[in-house]
């Protein structure tokens, strides 16, 4: 072993990926995936939120699919937000407390790589969780849709519907089952989480306490839902030139907080609207824009932080 051999530097990507996969395993070993069992229970329970109240073949299981979808998405949304905030909030304080941060930064690891790796690790965790939930939801949805289609076909045939009518009935039901737009909606949930995770990362570089970061990030997330309203208010009221203070406040809110309401397209998809790829692309663009900005801002603060 020679003492003068030059060491290979490695690449930014390589280092970031190493930290990302490591963060993923670290978080995964915190027994995060057990919640999937709870999700399975919720989604199976939602199957039973179906009161047969109307007559006719169209009414068979009419509300079941919507119930399954809205329950699944509700859980997915809640879980991804909580995970994004809490998992990100605990990463930096944990490393500092355990002094593992020193050993990593004592290696030739640029601080940006470290932050980016941590964020990517959290995002990977959220992505995998959502993917698993998506699979579960799609399977249950597919099974229920087939059951409903058969039921409807039977009733329709008994009622003497024409084959065309039966075909269109089946098509309508199938459109309410699993489809590409639904997968797009799951992706929208992920994109929203990535914004909130990168925001939590920024806040955690300021604060040294997991609790503080969690509380502030949750608050920002909640207020962020009103960002669209604040923005509309500012843009509309601006013309009349009244209310200086409320204008100033609404402007501040509009500029500082992300517009989380854009991701409410999920509701429309649950109700059966199609989501064009272009829209998904635009949402992805926004999410990347935010994630990049917040990561760079985190690096700005973190770069000369002392330990």
């Amino acid at each position, binding site marked *: 072993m020679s003492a003068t051999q030059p060491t290979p530097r490695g690449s930014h990507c390589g280092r970031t990926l190493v930290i990302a996969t490591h963060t993923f395993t670290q978080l995964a070993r915190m027994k995060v995936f057990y919640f999937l069992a709870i999700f399975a229970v919720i989604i199976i329970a939602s199957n039973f939120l179906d009161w047969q109240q*109307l007559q006719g073949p169209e009414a068979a299981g009419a*509300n079941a699919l*919507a*119930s399954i979808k809205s329950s699944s998405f509700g859980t997915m949304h809640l879980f991804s937000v909580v995970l994004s905030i809490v998992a990100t909030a605990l990463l930096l304080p944990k490393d500092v407390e355990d002094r593992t941060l020193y050993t990593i930064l004592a290696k030739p690891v640029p601080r940006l790589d470290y932050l980016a790796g941590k964020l990517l690790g959290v995002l990977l965790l959220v992505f995998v969780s959502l993917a698993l939930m998506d699979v579960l939801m799609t399977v249950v949805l597919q099974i229920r849709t087939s059951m409903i289609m058969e039921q409807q076909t039977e009733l329709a045939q008994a009622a003497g519907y024409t084959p065309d009518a039966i075909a269109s009935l089946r098509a309508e039901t199938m459109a309410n089952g699993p489809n590409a737009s639904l997968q797009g909606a799951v992706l929208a949930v992920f994109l929203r989480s990535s914004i909130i995770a990168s925001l939590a990362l920024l806040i955690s570089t300021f604060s040294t306490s997991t609790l503080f970061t969690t509380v502030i990030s949750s608050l920002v997330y909640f207020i962020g839902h009103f960002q669209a309203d604040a923005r509309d208010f500012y*843009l509309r009221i601006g013309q009349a030139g009244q209310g200086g203070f409320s204008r100033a406040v609404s402007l501040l809110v509009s500029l500082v907080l992300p517009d989380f309401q854009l991701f409410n*397209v999920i*509701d429309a998809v649950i109700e059966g609207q199609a989501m064009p790829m272009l829209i998904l692309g635009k949402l992805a663009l926004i999410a990347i824009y935010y994630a990049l900005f917040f990561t760079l801002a985190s690096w700005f603060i973190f770069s*000369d932080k002392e330990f």
Partner: protein
Amino acid sequence: MNIWLKSVILSLALLAFGAARLPYEAGLSHELRNARLLPPHLEINTLDKIGQTSSAITLGGLRTLVATFLNLRAYTAFAEHRWPDLAKTFNLIVDLAPHTRYYWETGSWHLAYNAAGYYLHDSDLPPLRRRELWRSYILQGHAFLERAIRNNPDDWKLLSSLGFLLTDSNKIPAFHDTNACYAAAAEAYLKSAATGRTSGFEARARLYSLARVKGKEAESLALARSLYAAGPQNRTPTLVMLLLVLEAHENPSLDVAQRAIQLFKTPQKAYSSLSGHWQRTRDGFPVYGVSAGLLSLENSLGISKEKSVLTKPLPPPPSIDDWFHN
């Protein structure tokens, strides 16, 4: 660089970043609202009514989830006959999920049928009061369906349900203008059939409604003829009968009996069909030439005056005075 300076720089950067993306976000938001991918803003009132936790979830973006649970609340209201609560809840539900057909259908059904029917038989209130409530709920159900169609103009089922409500002989007395009802029903069935997703019933139902509109006999006849010609699946007894009476209206000198035998194949079937139609007073179908046809057939079939259907008392047309008597 100390932390304060850094915070100032960061805040400025945040504001600048915000200013840069603001137009893009506003534009995207607008685009999504137009494409009906984003729901319109929820009114503050609606948020009040839903309550805090639900508001949080709604703003958080799962309106459909809140609607699912409100639906349970509405069902309980239905089971306990709390009609005003039910109406309020359904209005909330459709605010949250305006494109889910199920909620519109169920809501209007509860209002126009269950609530109204409840007041038909509930003997606690005085008759005038019950009648008023019966009427009001039918009108609420009707308004609900119309709002449904405004929100979902392409939905064939909602249009069909509207037509069904407006031609229901038990509900028509709640409306002022019967003629207008039938005309509106025909319009609704026309739009429903035009979506191309219906079973064929809607096309026929359009005729059934149109035939009852005074002044539209010519149009109805043309429709009846085209439906008849379209195939045997359309030749329901009602349709064939309507074809007959409309032809009699167009041509007063038509030999109704002969034509009836032509359409119904045998004189006995013709007679029974004509008698059935004659006695069908509740539905308000036109009866042009039916009595003449009946007389002629009675002569040829040798049915005596005592057994004639023309001398039997007719079932009375629907009258709400009778229903709310006691």
